[in-house]
């Protein structure tokens, strides 16, 4: 029976490949010979395919292979390794000298030079250009001069157009000076927002065409981009060390419907899939169906927390109450029963995949102990009235929020209700406007694999994602010291100390880390699933029939 399935699915694959390589009118022309093609599960990019704009995974997965940066994250360990950079040196974690490899080309054949970085970063940081990722340039000296006074770009233009901290030394060398010491600068430079941009971009930066089929310095280039799929083919000018093996990558758009992608994977129409329907996750049915050799589960660089509303008077200055609530939540059971194991209970505020992770930082509030929780809860005065747990209704969060509420009702006797907002946007808006009381959901997906990325953007005063209103001078100064550290180990120790401070007041209650299921078809080999939970498209190969 097994062999019959294989034989038939091979036939199906040939048919699928014929269909997939045909243009949208559907005429079955065979694909190019050689490395073959892989079909990856995709979703609609929210912004133009530009590192300066793309901050979600849908566009990010495409940019991963279409752009290259000074550094690249190693697929296995997520440690940064030199890509375009020949070397990056610094004595004080504040002035970095970057030397580029010569002969690194964009997909239009032009060479990557120092000015391609400087101009791209200046463009990204300059507020009137409205780049979504502008804040990543904040550490670079002179960033403030590129912002519009009063945040009003219609009335006031920024005083300068170029970052003072970027200086070109020669064609292949430039320096980066940061306002404050930034010990993990090297690591950050691997993120796609720091990709160089070619001359062609600056000719017409608003070009919709460039946003659809960008010119980058990565191993692949986008050759077509439609509502149904994004096709990538090798960049023939690529000279870097991460050349891809396959001749075509098809990024097929599924718009988050897990059942269609799953059916396609089973039918052999799809080669790599990272969303598995909930019913398949139960009891690991999907692993039984495909076998261990075609599946992997990765803990990803994400965390889900319940943020304690900074406007709720009952929680104000009552860390004991916060801790008791955290202690009364049975994360183990919820992640198993509701998520079928696709979440791992959190024991701190930093996902385990990153450099500098330390387990059990959260302390008592993350260890389920209903008896002690009840004692502490009563000692802390309890929560009077209705305790609401707010989650967005469009992301499948209702079930676990109900479970958390049940825990709080049964273990603590709290009058807990789930408050659903229509969507994520509304939740963020209400959180920002201070309309939410009690607890509300927040998630974080790391931008680059560092402990720092889980602390600074979320708990620093004035940070865009500091929904908990956390404000602790000691925490601030520890972060500053950590940023100034000259070696990574010392920096990590300081970041860990800062993380431990969160357990004094619990601005948020860590819930769980997301794990990403990944499954692939029988016709691909050398599947490496990165720490980010995505396939390394430069290593994958296809069997030749």
């Amino acid at each position: 029976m097994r062999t019959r399935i294989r034989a038939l699915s091979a036939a199906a694959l040939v048919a699928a490949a014929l269909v997939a390589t045909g243009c949208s009118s559907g005429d079955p022309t065979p694909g190019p010979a050689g490395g073959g093609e892989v079909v990856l599960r995709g979703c609609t990019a929210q912004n133009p395919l530009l590192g300066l704009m793309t901050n979600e995974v849908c566009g990010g997965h495409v940019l991963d292979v279409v752009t290259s940066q000074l550094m690249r994250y190693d697929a296995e360990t997520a440690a940064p390794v030199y890509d375009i950079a020949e070397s990056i040196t610094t004595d004080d974690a504040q002035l970095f000298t970057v030397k580029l490899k010569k002969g690194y080309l964009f997909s239009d054949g032009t060479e990557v030079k120092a000015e391609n970085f400087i101009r791209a970063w200046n463009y990204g940081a300059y507020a009137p250009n409205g780049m979504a990722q502008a804040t990543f340039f904040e550490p670079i000296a002179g960033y403030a001069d590129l912002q519009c006074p009063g945040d009003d770009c219609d009335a006031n233009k920024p005083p300068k157009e170029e970052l003072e901290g970027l200086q070109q030394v020669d064609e292949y060398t430039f320096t980066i000076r940061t306002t404050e010491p930034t010990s993990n600068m090297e690591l950050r430079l691997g993120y796609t927002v720091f990709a160089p941009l070619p001359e062609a971009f600056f000719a017409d930066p608003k070009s919709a065409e460039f946003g659809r089929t960008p010119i980058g310095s990565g191993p692949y280039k986008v050759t077509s981009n439609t509502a149904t799929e994004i096709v990538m083919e090798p960049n023939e000018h690529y000279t870097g060390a991460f050349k891809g093996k396959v001749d075509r990558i098809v990024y097929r758009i599924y718009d988050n419907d897990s059942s269609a992608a799953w059916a396609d994977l089973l039918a052999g129409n799809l080669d790599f899939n990272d969303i598995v329907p909930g019913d398949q996750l139960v009891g690991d049915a999907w692993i039984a169906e495909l076998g261990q050799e075609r599946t992997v589960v990765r803990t990803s660089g994400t965390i889900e927390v319940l943020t304690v509303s900074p406007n709720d008077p009952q929680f104000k200055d009552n860390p004991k109450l916060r801790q008791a609530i955290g202690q009364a939540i049975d994360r183990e059971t919820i992640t198993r029963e509701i998520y079928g194991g696709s979440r791992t209970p959190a024991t701190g505020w930093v996902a385990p995949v990153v450099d500098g992770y330390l387990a059990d930082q959260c302390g008592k509030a993350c260890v389920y102990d209903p008896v002690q929780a009840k004692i502490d809860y009563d000692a802390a005065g309890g929560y009077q009235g209705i305790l609401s747990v707010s989650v967005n209704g469009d992301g499948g969060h209702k079930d676990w929020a109900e479970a958390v509420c049940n825990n709080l009702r049964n273990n603590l006797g709290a009058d807990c209700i789930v408050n659903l907002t229509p969507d994520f946007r509304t939740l963020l808006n209400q959180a920002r406007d201070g309309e939410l009381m009690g607890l509300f959901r927040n998630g974080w997906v790391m931008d680059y694999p560092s402990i720092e990325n889980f602390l600074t953007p979320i708990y620093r005063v004035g940070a865009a994602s500091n929904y908990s209103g956390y404000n602790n001078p000691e925490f601030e100064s520890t972060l500053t010291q950590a940023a100034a550290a000259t070696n990574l180990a010392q920096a990590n120790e300081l970041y860990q100390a800062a993380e431990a401070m969160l357990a004094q007041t619990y601005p948020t209650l860590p819930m769980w880390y997301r794990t990403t299921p990944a499954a692939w078809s029988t016709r691909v080999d050398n599947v490496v699933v990165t720490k980010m939970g995505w396939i390394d498209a430069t290593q994958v190969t296809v069997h030749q029939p």
Partner: protein
Amino acid sequence: MIPVIIGATFILFVLVFALPGEPWQGRCGERECPASYIEAFKREYNLDKPLLLQYLLYLGKLVQGDLGVNFYNNRVIDELAVRYPTTVKLALIAIAVEIVIGIAAGLLAGINKGRFLDSLVVVSTLVVVSIPVFVIGSVSQWGVLQLHLNDIFPVTAAQGTIKQLILPGFVLGSLSVAYVARLTRTNLVENLRADYVRTARAKGLSTGRVIGVHTLRNSLIPVVTFIGYDFGSLMGGAIVTERIFNINGIGGFIFRSISQRDGVSVVGAVTVLVLVYLVANLLVDLLYGVLDPRISHD
């Protein structure tokens, strides 16, 4: 027709923009977008202007046949051009299924009123009507995978080729098949009792001619009305089927655009839908005359 379009676009425009939440929220991953990004976004899409002015600017373009640019900086006309052909193909397959299977079943049941075949059609259509479409869709996918028929009936239809759309077309048409069969049957049964049928029989016409030419034709008028209406609703309302089979159609596009507050896309897509409804109704009206010459179009 023009007041219908202006009315529909205005109401939609106001409704979409009245929804809570902003179009740029959620575009910056799990964090807030920078103020400069929001400002540039508003400027680019006229969101900094009053709603009425936004609408008039939009209408001004619409009059010239320009459906505008959506929040993804794509021309709405291009977005629709990708999806409408797929949706039309899917709807036509579904309609063809309805016509062929539905009318045949109705005819058989009507002629054999009260006998086994009639009961079979009535009961089986009742069963089909009572099953939600996502159950039929998922079960059919599962069945195809179990029987290894994926290369004949692909389980998803990302590219929207005719071959890929056959399975979803059947699923989509299955509900309406039941209605068409029942409508045909009821009308046929009623008309078979009419005086003119007796006259025709008395004249010595063959049974085939009596039923095929005289009775069925008359009985099809309500069926054609239903199919015309159904075509319109299948165009925009096939969201569930589209999602199950990963079809890039209009229904899913409208759904996604609403949840992303992409008003320009919603209004553009629906405007075209209104046109489709109007044209489908016109066709139905014209067909009445063909089916029953007593209904004249003078």
